[in-house]
């Protein structure tokens, strides 16, 4: 079956980028899609052999330069990965996605040469994984002033507190911890980021149980009890940690938008095909009802528009000209549009949408994360409105 998303992407990206998208799509069709139901029904996280195959394919090293053993890709490639893997499963897609956009990215953007040399080759090979430790039980949207603290002791730093919602924690070798280091400094200049090994004494990880979205993705809570790290564990500048986090999130939000569009692309194909197969009244397909057509047409419009916008933002991100507002806007719009439409798609298909094997319910559930993750849409509008209130 020809996917609608392919027609649009083929037009929007260069030939070799489309070839990469196709390779990941083939991988996803052959190695992910046939196993998803089984993984879901057994409540498994992405199994080790699937992780191994993804690293063999170089996905964990996608945007890392070839000099460090990576694939030398850019942000467009990353979002193409999100689209290709997310078509079947956002949970699977976010695993390399977060490892790259939230894990390796801050190191690439803000790391010293020594830090890059120490970590990037193993990150590229999938032997190490960094997680992004911004959110805390008491600090979600209000993340600039963490409750996790780091205090200088001799030449070292001692970290205490708890991070949560850490995607990929189960497989992480290191966590980038955003910690309060200068409580009386100006807002935005009070925190510092540290690269902390997960096996350091005093680091405790626990999977957050009971999560009914992104079910195959690991989401961990990580506790720090007097964890001591040397000064060269600082990522970026001292007391400039929030900037490291915020810069990273710009790219991450584009990836979240790609996941939302991947789900929309799946729902569009599923619905348009089911609507031609399912017959009701006079033995004719439900696709002849205009109210059903409306949902399909709206999904198609939203998909083409979203992809065009997202690919444009990726180029700006690469050029260093993407503003925070632009990254926030594309994430807000793709996530809410896709989740609203996928809900309508379920209604258009009817009762069959309740079943896991039909696929829509998975995307419907997972789309919730795209609305709240990497900045809740409500909170992001605070950011988007700022330039609008200037004269």
């Amino acid at each position, binding site marked *: *079956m*020809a996917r609608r998303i392919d027609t649009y992407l083929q037009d929007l990206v260069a030939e*070799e980028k489309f*070839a*990469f998208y196709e*390779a*990941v799509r*083939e*991988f996803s069709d052959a190695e992910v899609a046939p196993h998803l139901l089984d993984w879901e029904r057994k409540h498994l996280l992405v199994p080790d052999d699937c992780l191994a195959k993804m690293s*063999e*394919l*170089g996905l964990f090293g*996608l945007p890392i330069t*070839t000099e460090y053993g990576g*694939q*030398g*890709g850019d942000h467009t*490639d990353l979002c193409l990965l999100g689209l290709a893997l997310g078509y079947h499963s956002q949970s699977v897609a976010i695993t390399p996605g977060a490892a790259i956009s939230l894990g390796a990215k801050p190191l690439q953007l803000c790391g010293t040469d020594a830090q890059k040399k120490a970590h990037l080759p193993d990150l590229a090979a999938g032997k190490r994984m960094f997680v992004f430790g911004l959110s805390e039980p008491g600090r979600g949207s209000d993340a600039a002033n963490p409750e996790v603290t780091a205090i200088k002791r001799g030449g070292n730093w001692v970290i205490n507190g708890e991070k949560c919602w850490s995607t990929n924690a189960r497989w992480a070798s290191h966590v980038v911890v955003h910690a309060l280091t200068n409580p009386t400094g100006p807002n935005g200049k009070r925190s510092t980021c540290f690269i902390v090994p997960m096996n350091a004494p005093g680091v405790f990880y626990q999977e957050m149980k009971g999560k009914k979205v992104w079910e195959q993705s690991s989401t961990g809570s990580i506790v720090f009890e007097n964890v001591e790290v040397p000064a060269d564990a600082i990522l970026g500048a001292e007391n400039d940690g929030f900037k490291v986090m915020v810069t990273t999130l710009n790219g991450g939000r584009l990836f979240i938008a790609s996941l939302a569009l991947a789900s929309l692309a799946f729902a569009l194909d599923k619905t348009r095909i089911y609507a031609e197969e399912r017959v009701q009244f006079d033995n004719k397909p439900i696709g002849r009802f205009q109210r059903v057509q409306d949902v399909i047409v709206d999904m198609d419009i939203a998909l083409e528009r979203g992809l065009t916008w997202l690919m444009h933002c990726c180029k700006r991100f690469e050029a260093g000209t993407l503003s925070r507002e632009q990254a926030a806007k594309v994430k807000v719009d793709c996530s809410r549009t896709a989740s609203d439409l996928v809900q309508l798609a379920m209604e258009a298909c009817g009762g069959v949408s309740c079943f896991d094997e039909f696929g829509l319910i998975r995307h419907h559930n997972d789309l919730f994360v795209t609305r709240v993750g990497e900045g809740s849409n409500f909170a992001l509008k605070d950011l988007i409105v700022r330039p609008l209130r200037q004269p």
Partner: protein
Amino acid sequence: MEIVVCIKRVPATDTAIKIAADGKSIETQGVTFELNAYDEFALEQALRIKEQLNAGSVTVVTVGPKEAQKQLQDALARGADKAVLLLTNEWVHDSWACSHALAAHINKSKYDLLLCGRQAMDADNNQLPSRLAALLGFGCVTEVSKLSLANGVFTAERDIEGAREVIECKTPAVISCNKGLNEPRYANLKGIMAAKKKPYEESPAALPTSAMAIESLTLPPARKAGRILGTGAAAVPALIAALRNEVKVL
């Protein structure tokens, strides 16, 4: 070892085939094409042999239309060193003619090993590897599902009726590859970028006039709805009667 892999661009296996207006070919509008699945095993095996020996080269060759460039690029991205497109706009369904076109090209250089898929999934002839071996004067093992190489000698295993046959063979040889031989790799981004810089050649296919012509193509008849004759052991006599008298298979 110098290896050639013969590949073919075929309609994707999930295509709903429609017969074209001429009644002799398939409608290609809206059909997606892909690398013949059996050829993927051949390509993968070639790459593994090269990796094992840490020497030699892998050349992929196809007889096909301009669009087959995509499948050749894919093979280069997975690790082949060189690609050759022998151009034709005809649908190549005649193994005799195709083997001549391939042999004409292959004879220009010295190769030790030719790997093919066991059959192309469009025409399903299952003839090309043996024909090619005969034309080139190479040894030939077909439908191989396990292959190893030691001291210049291949040991090939193939499934035959109710048994497994083990064959030793020296080069030069043609080996056709079956499912189960290996697990083909996917192209990665680095490979895709590198593929653009690899040698790529195009020339008209030296196809002789086809030895056969397709008179007509028809789709298999639609399956009739099933009929339940009863349940349990009581239904068996009726079932036997129906199989004997109506379907005439007993």
